């Protein structure tokens, strides 16, 4: 059988972290009482007009720069029409003709064959980033044959990030999204928490034989976590391969991922393609951005967005942070990934290093093996750790000074997890875990053991 080449592209919607919505002054807030954050414009009252939120533009520019995009100094807004209960105006304002940023790239890493020791870097091209409105939420109540509409989310700013089909499997898709998430969180342009709907991922999947044109693609939606993303993509790839190998065809359709069953199922009744009747948004003039060169002298800087100004103030991106960690502390690249992957872990590591004379290269083991696995086992975040970096630092100092052995240190740590407020020294004294340097004392202990285990001694002597 000829090999199959899976092709995966992603459309990611990231909710912009801002106080108010993209085109209106109502607040952005998660889980507020239904329809309590709805302005006249959000409710599509006749006669209301959109007013662009500057912060949302800045967020998109920041994100575009972080993803190596060209920022379009002139971009346009369009209306995308369809009827749905959660779309009060009957159209969404988006950027279809000329989006705010194009032609970028995102580098991400993943481990080959599940070993952290072998990491490879991949790149996915970013086709574009566009600003658009989020829709409201509709809840279908089938028992009462009604739909409940909550417009709190209607009009919240979104950045749609389109990743070209450069990925080949679930793992790559997941790694790419994870990296994007970290970037967005570092920039602060989106909190990107998937569970709160701040980051939504749709996957476009197709398969083909090498050398042949791309196959028909399906769109997979309803993916609620990065883990499910990998599963959904891999399942869909397999499903398509099976269909094709059994002589069937792939429909260009939208499928939903069912996390319980672990499979994708057909979703919307698409009846061929929807024509969105795109039209320029007549109430918004073209969005003009400036840089240091094009900024007119007498322009009120409150009225403009300056790309260079934003560029100068970008924080260190995850890739830069990782490189710095490796250089500064002599840890391995894969270590740096894990440090950044867990919220707060990098800070914890750095604080511990400050506390102790132990070399960072050795500290990292305690962080990644002991601390992290304990937290994972008990489903705790770094912030919730009963052992602080101070405490761990103290403990590691005792180990470094050879006051205790590594084995003893692990025992002390086990006690510290209980969070009873005892210091490492107190625990060591309690459990008599100090290293004994005195030869005479050691001899006594050994003798006592030998005396207490006659049978075993005989067996040992006999060989």
């Amino acid at each position, binding site marked *: 059988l000829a090999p199959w080449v899976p092709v995966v592209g992603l459309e990611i919607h990231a909710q912009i972290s801002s106080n108010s919505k993209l085109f209106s002054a109502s607040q952005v807030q998660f889980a507020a009482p239904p329809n309590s954050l709805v302005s006249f414009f959000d409710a599509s009252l*006749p006669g209301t*007009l959109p007013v662009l939120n500057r912060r949302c533009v800045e967020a998109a520019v920041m994100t575009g720069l972080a993803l190596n995009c060209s920022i379009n100094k002139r971009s346009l807004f369009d209306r995308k029409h369809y*009827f749905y209960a959660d779309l009060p105006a009957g159209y969404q304002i988006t950027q279809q003709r000329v989006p705010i940023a194009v032609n970028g790239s995102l580098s991400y890493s993943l481990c080959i064959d599940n070993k952290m020791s072998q990491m490879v870097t991949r790149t996915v091209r970013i086709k574009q980033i566009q600003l658009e409105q989020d829709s409201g939420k509709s809840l279908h109540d089938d028992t009462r044959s009604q739909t409940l509409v909550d417009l709190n989310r209607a009009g919240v700013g979104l950045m749609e990030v389109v990743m070209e089909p450069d990925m080949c499997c679930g793992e790559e898709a997941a790694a790419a999204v994870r990296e994007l998430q970290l970037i967005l969180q570092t920039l602060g342009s989106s909190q990107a928490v998937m569970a709160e709907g701040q980051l939504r991922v749709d996957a476009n999947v197709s398969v083909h034989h090498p050398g042949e044109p791309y196959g028909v693609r399906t769109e997979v939606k309803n993916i609620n976590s990065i883990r499910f993303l990998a599963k959904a993509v891999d399942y869909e790839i397999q499903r398509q391969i099976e269909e094709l190998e059994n002589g069937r065809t792939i429909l260009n359709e939208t499928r939903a991922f069912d996390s319980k069953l672990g499979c994708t199922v057909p979703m919307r009744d698409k009846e061929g393609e929807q024509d969105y009747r795109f039209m320029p948004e007549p109430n918004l003039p073209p969005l003009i951005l400036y840089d240091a060169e094009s900024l007119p002298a007498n322009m009120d800087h409150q009225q403009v967005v300056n790309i260079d100004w934003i560029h100068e103030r970008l924080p260190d991106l995850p890739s830069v942070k990782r490189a710095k960690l490796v250089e500064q502390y002599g840890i391995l690249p894969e270590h740096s990934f894990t440090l950044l992957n867990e919220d707060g872990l990098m800070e914890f590591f750095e604080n511990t290093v400050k506390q102790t004379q132990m070399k960072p290269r050795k500290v990292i083991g305690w962080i990644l093996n002991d601390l992290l696995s304990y937290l994972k086992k008990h489903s705790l975040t770094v912030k919730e750790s009963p052992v602080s970096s101070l405490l761990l630092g103290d403990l590691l100092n005792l180990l470094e000074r050879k006051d205790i052995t590594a084995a003893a240190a692990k025992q002390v740590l086990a006690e510290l997890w209980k969070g009873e407020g005892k210091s490492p020294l107190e625990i060591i004294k309690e459990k008599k875990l100090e290293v004994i340097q005195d030869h005479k004392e050691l001899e006594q202990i050994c003798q006592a053991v030998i005396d207490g285990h006659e049978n075993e001694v005989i067996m040992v002597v006999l060989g």
Partner: protein
Amino acid sequence: VSPEPGSPQVAAALKGGRVTPTELCQRCLALIRSTGFLNAYITVAEETALKQAEESEERYRRGQPLGVLDGIPISVKDNFSTAGIETTCASSMLKGYISPYNATVVQKLLDQGAVLLGKTNLDEFAMGSGSTDGVFGPVRNPWSYSRQYQEKSVSKSHSEDEESNWVITGGSSGGSAAAVSSFTCFAALGSDTGGSTRNPAAHCGVVGLKPTYGLISRHGLIPLVNSMDVPGILTRCVDDAAVMLGSLAGHDPKDSTTIQDNFEPFELPDLTDVSKLSIGIPKEYNAPGLSSEILALWSKAADLFKNAGAKVIEVSLPHTRYSIVCYHVLCTAEVASNMARFDGLEYGHRSDMNESTESMYAATRREGFNDVVRGRILSGNYFLLKQNYENYFIKAQKVRRLIFNDFVKVFRGGVDILLTPTTLSDAVPYMEFIKEDNRTRSAQDDILTQAANMAGLPAINVPTALSERGLPIGLQFIGRSFQEKQLLTVAKWFEKQVKFPMIELEAVKRLDDGVFQHQKSAFS
């Protein structure tokens, strides 16, 4: 308190205490009642108007009026949002809709103490050129009942009374034009997308100003074509239009299409010397169907300027003849988009059909919109389809650019103002008007006014003379972008030359005690 005949401007009268805001308001309300057969008003906000008048009176008593508009009764076309007062757009879709906010222009008027008498009638959602296609019935032109018209309607016997003979106001701001024309208010707001303020102004013998696009905020004006709509101003003289403009123009942060520049209100100078003026006469505006009467009047007006020393030259706007189809494509496309929000969910009419969301939407929209609106939505959606977009919408935008460039060329060539007819004929009788459908009528009637909307230019109708049938004929001046001061100055000069007669209305005479009869300008 009864002002003497020949009393001057009403604002001065108010200031001088010769008439109080409450008296003024009550008189207007009484006149509205006695001219109810005109059907110019959809909603009369009697209670709130009297309250506003009382508050104004209090301010005058303290010697602290808010400005020249304080206490002045005005009316507003029913497609502007007014908080607490029903806004229907003359459509079943919005019957009972009470907006929670005021349109910016309404708010500005109220902030200056104007008294809001009510909401005036229009074609449904401002689609039409007759003010005949609204859900509350057609508006009647007050001139139908004027002595001037009636004495010319000799041929009709008395049994065939005014009922079948009345003429239309033109549209779509017919209610506002009729309201101003019949003295029920001193100024009114209309809207203008293809001529909807200038057309009824011409037919009703009042001044109708279409300002430059971007000068006055559209926030709260329920849109027809966002890229062409402007709030329009209807008054009985050009000076009043200048005062209204001064109160309304300026940047609105709520409307991103308003210009940022500061706007300075102006008083109109009394122009005496027109020798430095260059008046352009666009030959394409001698359009098919233009009545010989209006053609002659237009020519006479050109001569008027020439004889006074102005330079009058023939110019060409070659793409004029494409403006109708261009407008049709762009207008219907935006209409299809703007009407998408009317689904019965958040406000307005909602059908009882509740089998599914889709069926509820479809039934609501079928029940809520009239044929004209539905027709334009279907056309617009057709033009916006992916396979048609390039050939229709994009092409129309390109043609629009060409039409705009025509004006740029002419103005760059040294012309200051263009002089054209406003309408093809005087007002036709209703019975005749409805023989053709809305689409045909709009296409015919908009030809002289539309291009100014496409190019975003300011334009004004000035009542010029009475036709042979005793009905008003107006002529139009089109100016350069944001040069309203020049436009209105020239218009005022012209107004002074032509001395258009005052309407002689029985209803007004009965109520008259000098305030209305000899009043020219509302503001001093």
